[in-house]
């Protein structure tokens, strides 16, 4: 590795750390300025002054803000995000519990969204202005503009309440709850590792509907983007050349044009995935999915700053990582960016 690459890497790492630090500082300040009182959440509205003051001190809120932030950073360096008021557990333990639930949901959603969105986008681009193109555009417009919450409710009504195909609220039937020891926290992986196929099937039954609904949303976005990337490529001269040279239409579309949009697509998918990880709040509420989105909203409403900061850190790290990854992919696939 050359010195310049190392230096570039160093710069990149430094900027990542600074970004995360800035994010934490901003969240911390906003959190403290917010008209939300964590003490009141703990002691309830009817507590008297002495109890209130005691809890206020226990939480360390009587210290000056910079000191509180410095303590927070010190603990963070030791891998300690503090205790969550919301659950009484360590924030790190909570995140280790809620993140896998959302990762499982978002991964399934992004797989479905990409698996359907990319072919649909390509298909629409190759039939530009024809009926198929319009149909795909209407589908993606519908998928993108209809609230996820509404889809969730309708999905539950049709596939859970009427048809009984999908599981209801939660991640698994209560009868199976706790049957598989959590190793990764991903229920599908854990049950497969334990060879508990009944649990696995049940988990799929619960996962599929919310994942499809989230997937529909990302499918709409991905297909629209794929379509426009493809259109841009298909109007290029090298495509005409390829066609003139007698290459089959399939070869032109998938072999030439699609290969050239791959990097752009990866960026889009990566960002959509990041969005799913932090933004599945509504679906998690409708399906009582014990994931990251629910955890973040509850802690926000409570003014539980340790939990909020932990969540912000996670979201920050997810986005920074995804950005780094997509940058790296550009670097690998597109020689012009080197």
């Amino acid at each position, binding site marked *: 590795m050359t010195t310049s690459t190392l230096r570039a890497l160093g710069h990149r790492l430094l900027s990542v750390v600074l970004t995360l630090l800035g994010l934490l500082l901003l969240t911390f300040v906003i959190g403290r300025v917010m008209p939300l009182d964590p003490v009141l959440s703990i002691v309830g509205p009817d507590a*008297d002054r*002495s109890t209130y003051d005691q809890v206020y001190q226990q939480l360390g809120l009587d210290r000056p803000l910079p000191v509180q932030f410095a303590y927070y950073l010190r603990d963070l360096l030791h891998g300690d995000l503090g205790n969550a008021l919301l659950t009484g557990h360590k924030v790190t333990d909570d995140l280790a519990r809620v993140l896998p639930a959302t990762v499982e949901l978002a991964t399934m959603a992004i797989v479905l969204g990409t698996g359907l969105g990319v072919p649909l986008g390509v298909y629409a681009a190759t039939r530009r202005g024809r009926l198929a193109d319009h149909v795909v555009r209407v589908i993606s417009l519908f998928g993108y503009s209809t609230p996820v919450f509404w889809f969730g409710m309708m999905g539950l009504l049709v596939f859970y309440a009427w048809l009984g195909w999908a599981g209801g609220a939660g991640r698994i039937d209560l009868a199976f709850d706790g049957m598989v020891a959590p190793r990764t926290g991903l229920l599908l992986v854990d049950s497969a590792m334990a060879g508990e196929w009944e649990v696995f099937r049940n988990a799929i039954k619960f996962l599929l509907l919310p994942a499809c609904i989230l997937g529909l949303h990302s499918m709409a976005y991905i297909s629209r983007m794929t379509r426009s990337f493809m259109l841009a490529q298909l109007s290029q001269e090298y495509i005409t050349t390829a066609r003139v040279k007698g290459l089959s239409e399939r070869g032109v579309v998938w072999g030439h044009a699609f290969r050239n949009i791959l990097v752009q697509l990866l960026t889009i998918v990566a960002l959509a995935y990041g969005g799913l990880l932090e933004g599945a709040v509504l679906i998690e509420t*409708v399906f009582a999915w014990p994931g990251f989105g629910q*955890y973040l909203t509850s802690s926000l409403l409570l003014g539980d700053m340790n939990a909020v900061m932990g969540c912000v850190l996670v979201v920050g790290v997810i986005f920074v990582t995804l950005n780094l990854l997509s940058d790296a992919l550009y670097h690998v696939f597109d020689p012009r960016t080197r």
Partner: protein
Amino acid sequence: MNHTKLLRRCAASVAVALALGTLGVVAQAKTPDDQLIVGFSMNNLLSLDPAAATGNDVVELAANLYDYLIELDPQTISKMQPGLAESWKVSADGRSITLVVRKGVKFQSGNELTAEDAAWSLQRVLKLNLAMASPWKSYGFTAQNVEKAVRATDATTLVIDLPEPTDPKMVLYTLATSVSSVVLDRKKVMENEKNGDMGAAWLTTHAAGSGPFSLVEWRAKDALLMNRFDGYWRGPAKLKRVIMRHMTESQSLRLMLERGDLDVASGMSVPDIESMKKNPEAVVSPVRRGTLYYVAVSMKDPKFADKRVRLAIRNLIDYDGINTTVMPNYGVPQQRPVQMGLPASLPSPGYKLDVAAAKKLLSEAGFPNGFKTTIRVLADPPFINIATSLQATLAKAGIEASVLSGTGNQVYGAMRERNFEILVGRGGGGVEPHPHSSLRALVYNPDNSDAAKLTNFQGWRTSFFSPELNQLIEKAEVERDEAKQTAQYQEAQKLYEAQVGAIQPFSQMVDTVVLRKDVRNYFGHPSATTRLRDVSKQR
């Protein structure tokens, strides 16, 4: 496959699916016979520690994980029944209560339960001085005096000396209703003590009781599992397992209840409750609570310090409209600070919306064209709907009110800071079925200075200060003759009416629970101590 074929196939499968669904071909799911599955929002469940846990949700859990010394009958709540205490006696001067604690009761850990555990549990609440110490502090107990005042003289005798004169019945009611009164397994808790916290950190997420169910696991904002404790002193509970699930979305609750995946649901929205009333598989069960919905004004604001303006506001609440359109399933009409159903309760004063009277009062007070003000309110139903109604009726008399909605934290936080004008809220003691419980919470204000910071008294928060009422409440509290006491409490309510208090109740809270038809012996308790030990399913 061409497009038309594909579309046709899709349409056909959707049609078949819908037809199957509407015909009810799909088998109904059923919860297991010996398990009770309950769905409700666990958003207010932050701690299971009886010394720290606020709110009604934890009371229901505590009533099943732990035992109380005294229990209240769910049908006639002023009737006290033995719990862990076989009997109790109040001394002639009313300053001491002696309870006889049952012999042979075992905790879930196998440890023997004694009067020492009961004494230690109460002492712990005061020593930790967390949220649930409030009722005890109001009787004069402190961290310093509690060891002397609450003590076990032997393994079966618990003596509680009252540091200040009060109605011993009120203390007995607190023993029967407050989550702080459950008896903890002292040995087990102390095994888990850390840095002198008397097990507080551990008890936040664990339980150590003698109740009919033992806590298996509580995953915050997800699920709580309880298993039957076979060694329960009353005999094992009928259900083997109780599973509680965190569900905040009313429609999801309804769908799961309809399909039979849930047995009990609470916190459902009014339209969903109404639709469940038509479902032959469900039973809708309203439970009356002691807390009141009210409109409060801050008398720190010079406008509202004027009695005529307060009276005008009292005339500008659409009691009938709110109670018939907004409050069904949330509350029943009640216009007095003492909850209904007690010997001291008075018939309704019959306040009505009277815009003309209000306008007259406002112009006498110097506001012929009304004024501008704000209404603070929780963003959730029914509060926000009540505020909208109030906003409309205030406007009829020229009062232009803007609605500031927020979370409980923001709304009651502002009230605790005495920083509001009008507020639509819910409160009052009312847990203990005793007039003092409500009057202390809503009316009583022993020191109106800002420095006093009596944030636990809503009287103080509204700056309502009436020395005559304070005296009357204090006098009634220590009156040993029941008939006289009842008369005094009635007098206090009449005086409150005449003085036009800062808090005007319009409805008494109702909590609506929806059950599957086959659930037997589920009696929602007005004090939230709903006991599941006799609940079963009949199929």
